[in-house]
């Protein structure tokens, strides 16, 4: 029986209403947190070792401590844009337990010294945004927000708005183009004011940390990756869904134990450990411990905690093309390496599919990826380049085999069958 914090009794009926949430002890910790000196609260968050759950994995307490002191308008923004393919944890958390997010935001806003807060939720989550609106109304009427002005802002469908500076531009009513950093949002963010941006799960964890004490929370999980994490598993598995795990359990335990593994008779060909932007791992890497540092050591990342499993009935070329097309569609076009690089990667992959490519194209494609990484304002281009580069590296034989057989006249569908 593993420890459940955020997911404990998540299906309790009407948990999304204030009375049920309060029955469970909700909103008891916020007044106590607000009575603490601000610095002590930030120290407490630092001591918990909580790392951002959105993708970058940066220490939440440290990020909050970057907020400047002073009387200017400061902002807290909750990033609920969750658009990384494979990720759907925030959706379930917000839909079923919206008040935990609001309570976490009240505390985080106090820690950051913010007087205004926004939840930027992706436009596709209509049902979830309705739930949040209702919960917010309840909390406001009950006077639980204190001085905080909190609004739900609905996006309108753009992956790039999950990038923090793209999100800020979008929230300011512009096209969601990322900004040059520095200045970082902690100094100049929303409306040029100091802004703290955190993921839904990060903010939602705060009340649980304070309730159990930072020292206790830090003991969960493994060194440098403390706490529990809600992970989303999807693709070719028998029981896809969100699971709350303690960081540091083995990946095999997650994919086979929790999610039931690939369908009968299939095996894991490759898997994305942290959303579609993470470099892929193969079926040989299943014993890696699922935590920030172990995955970094395996040259990939925990990211948003979204595992996508691809079984051996799929061709790696198709997966790669699907991925590249997504990033081509979502590139905002501001930086040339990403705008052109995503486009040309798609064109080269299409050439492979049409039998017009040679093995040399793989080297060109790999070099395109290396020219994107680190050369743009944001990491959208990198997010394509890393998995595509890793697929070429790890499945080069299959790419070459695929090319050769299409060149000799086989239909792509036949090749796919050959792997089945």
């Amino acid at each position: 029986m593993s420890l459940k914090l955020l997911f404990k009794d998540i299906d309790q009926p009407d948990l999304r209403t204030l009375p049920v949430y309060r029955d469970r002890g909700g909103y008891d910790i916020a007044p106590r947190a607000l009575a603490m000196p601000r610095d002590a609260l930030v120290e407490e968050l630092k001591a918990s070792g909580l790392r951002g759950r959105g993708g970058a994995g940066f220490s939440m307490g440290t990020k909050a401590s970057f907020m400047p002191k002073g009387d200017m308008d400061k902002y807290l923004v909750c990033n609920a844009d969750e658009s990384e393919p494979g990720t759907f944890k925030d959706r379930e958390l917000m839909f079923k337990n919206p008040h935990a997010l609001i309570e976490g935001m009240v505390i985080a806003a106090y820690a950051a010294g913010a007087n205004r807060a926004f939840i930027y939720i992706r436009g596709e989550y209509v049902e979830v945004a309705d739930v949040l609106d209702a919960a917010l109304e309840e909390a406001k009427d009950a006077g639980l927000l204190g001085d905080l002005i909190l609004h739900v802002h609905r996006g309108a469908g753009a992956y790039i708005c999950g990038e923090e500076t793209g999100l800020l531009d979008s929230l300011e009513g512009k096209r969601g183009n990322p900004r040059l950093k520095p200045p970082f949002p902690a100094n100049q963010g929303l409306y040029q004011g100091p802004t703290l941006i955190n993921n839904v799960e990060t903010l939602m964890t705060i009340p649980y940390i304070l309730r159990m004490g930072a020292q206790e929370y830090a003991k969960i999980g493994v060194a440098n990756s403390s706490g529990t994490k809600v992970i989303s598993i999807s693709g070719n598995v028998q029981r896809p869904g969100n699971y709350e795990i303690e960081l540091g359990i083995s990946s095999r335990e997650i994919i086979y134990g929790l999610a039931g593994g690939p369908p009968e008779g299939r095996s894991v060909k490759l898997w994305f450990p942290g959303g579609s932007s993470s470099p892929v791992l193969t079926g040989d890497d299943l014993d890696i411990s699922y935590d920030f540092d172990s995955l970094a050591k395996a040259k990939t990342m925990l990211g948003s905690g979204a595992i996508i499993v691809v079984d051996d009935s799929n061709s790696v070329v198709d997966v790669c093309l699907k991925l590249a097309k997504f990033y081509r569609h979502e590139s905002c076009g501001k930086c040339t390496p990403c705008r052109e690089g995503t486009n040309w990667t798609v064109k080269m992959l299409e050439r492979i599919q049409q039998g017009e490519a040679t093995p040399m194209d793989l080297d060109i494609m790999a070099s395109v990826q290396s020219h994107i990484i680190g050369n743009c304002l944001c990491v959208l281009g990198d997010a394509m380049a890393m998995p595509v580069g890793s697929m070429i590296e790890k499945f080069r034989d299959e790419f070459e085999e695929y090319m050769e057989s299409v060149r000799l006249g086989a239909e792509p569908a036949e090749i796919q069958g050959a792997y089945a």
Partner: protein
Amino acid sequence: MTDVKRYAHGSRVPGWDEAADLDKDPAQVPDLATTPVPEHLRAEIERHMAKYPDTRSAAIPALAAVQREYGWCTPEGVEQAAAVMRLTPAYLMAVATFYDMLETTPTGRNTVYVCTNISCSLLGADELLERVEGEVGDDPEFNVRGFECLGACDIGPMASVNGTYVGPIALDEVADLVSQVRAGEEPLPAKQLRRRPSADREANTRDWSEGAPS
């Protein structure tokens, strides 16, 4: 919107921009006194504007309101929003074209977004999209699109039907789904995401389905 001539490889044929008159005055903010705006639309946009320190932040909610009112972001609707927000219509158009959910060309009111991203496509989303498109045909009331990850990979292959998440959708359920939408009914009630319990078997300390107040 006029079609820009393109080569087969996608580049625009030179001269596509020649008609632009670079000498004319910059666009004007439409005058609210001479732009008729439906009272409820104006009220909704102003309510959004009041939420933000900078009213421009209401651009997306305002355009979404226009789309709800007229079915898509019509030039008239955008002009009305621009008049209320004291912005140029061109500015709002620039915002509208950035976001996938804001339509800048005429389209049906019933939106069916079929997720065709990785997780869903591993489970047959491309066939699903094809089937839905076939079933809908050229019905002008529908707006069927293959969409990027909708954040519901646990119910893949799935679709967002007028904002309601439904899945996993079997190919033989598509006909039912489409006729339900045509009749204005709930799409595949048994398959709606909101009714789905958590996949994590250890999450709940007891079974909430029995004797629970609903």
